[in-house]
């Protein structure tokens, strides 16, 4: 009859047993000829397999070829990153990012330079703007008593933008 502990012989052989169980198993081998024989048989197979699977030498100059390949790939991969920057999609994304940063910085500078800068209100006219009629009141600040401008009004249309360079 097969011993119940026979299944555990493999774990014993490969050292995969807690110390307590290992000692117990060792004691078991003394009294169980079946498990003892099983252990010997598995030991033989393990040794045979280890011997059969012994690594054979790699091809000659393997490491030299590998290191040459790595050295050749190194600058190529660095160049690859640089080259990627000039792909249309990457270039577009890069330009958009640069613009965002530029405008962001400009905006921050403006805010920092004039902490009391008024909010801007832009009025668009559908006809040509007449400077005498619109520009006078439009570009003046309406004081709110304390000297702080309430709003900066800008009236413009396509004509003003094009001819006067208002915006």
């Amino acid at each position: 009859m097969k011993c119940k502990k026979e299944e555990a012989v493999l774990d014993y052989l490969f050292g995969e047993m807690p110390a307590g169980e290992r000692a117990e198993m060792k004691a078991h081998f003394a009294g169980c000829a079946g498990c003892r024989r099983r252990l010997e048989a598995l030991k033989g197979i393990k040794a045979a397999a280890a011997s059969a699977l012994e690594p054979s030498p790699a091809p000659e100059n393997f490491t030299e070829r590998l290191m040459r390949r790595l050295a050749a790939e190194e600058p190529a991969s660095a160049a690859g990153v640089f080259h990627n920057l000039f792909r249309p999609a990457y270039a577009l994304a890069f330009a958009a990012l640069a613009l965002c940063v530029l405008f962001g910085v400009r905006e921050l500078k403006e805010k920092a330079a004039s902490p009391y800068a008024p909010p801007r209100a832009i009025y668009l006219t559908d006809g040509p703007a007449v400077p005498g009629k619109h520009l006078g009141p439009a570009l003046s600040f309406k004081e709110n008593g304390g000297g702080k401008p309430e709003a900066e009004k800008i009236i413009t249309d396509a004509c003003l933008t094009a001819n006067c360079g208002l915006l």
Partner: protein
Amino acid sequence: MEYPDRQKSESRENAAIGRFRNGETAAFAELAELYKDRIHRFIACILGPDREAEDIAQEAFVQMYRSLGSFKGGSSFGTWAYAVTRNVCRRRLRARGRETPLFDREEEGPRREPPDPAPSQDAALESAETKALVRSAVDGLPPIHRAVIFLSCWEGLSYAEIAEALEIPVGTVRSRLHNAMLALERRLGPAPGREKRKEQ
């Protein structure tokens, strides 16, 4: 080839990894020297005889070189190196249009009859004939059995380390090792222990 002392080997590995991380890329050559033969054998276990074995080994080392910076050292370099190699083999199989069940199936390949007469395991294992016989028996095992047997019997990795290298649960390692040993035993003929038990 004699298996290098594991402790000595690990301290050499760690020193080389340290130098590599400090910018000495040439230190990688030392790691390659330590592992090139083992990685070749591991590839042979997974793929069998393969014309591209050297190229696959080179690719595995290139991968290791590229990701050594992110190697955290939670496992030994060897365990990590086998896991990287396994993934490279897997990718190569996919590229060839062979799916990965090859890694998972446990069915045995065509049985290669050992040369006559079949000796028992207690025969002199050192002899070249016996070695060839056992190698033929091992070659007939499914890749997953060969890999598990190599990592446990020759490399001496623990179940947990094998699990990490092959990306399978520890319980699966145990059952596969058990099945692999039984399969090998069947191919080599009855073990002395079994013979005696039948006689009783």
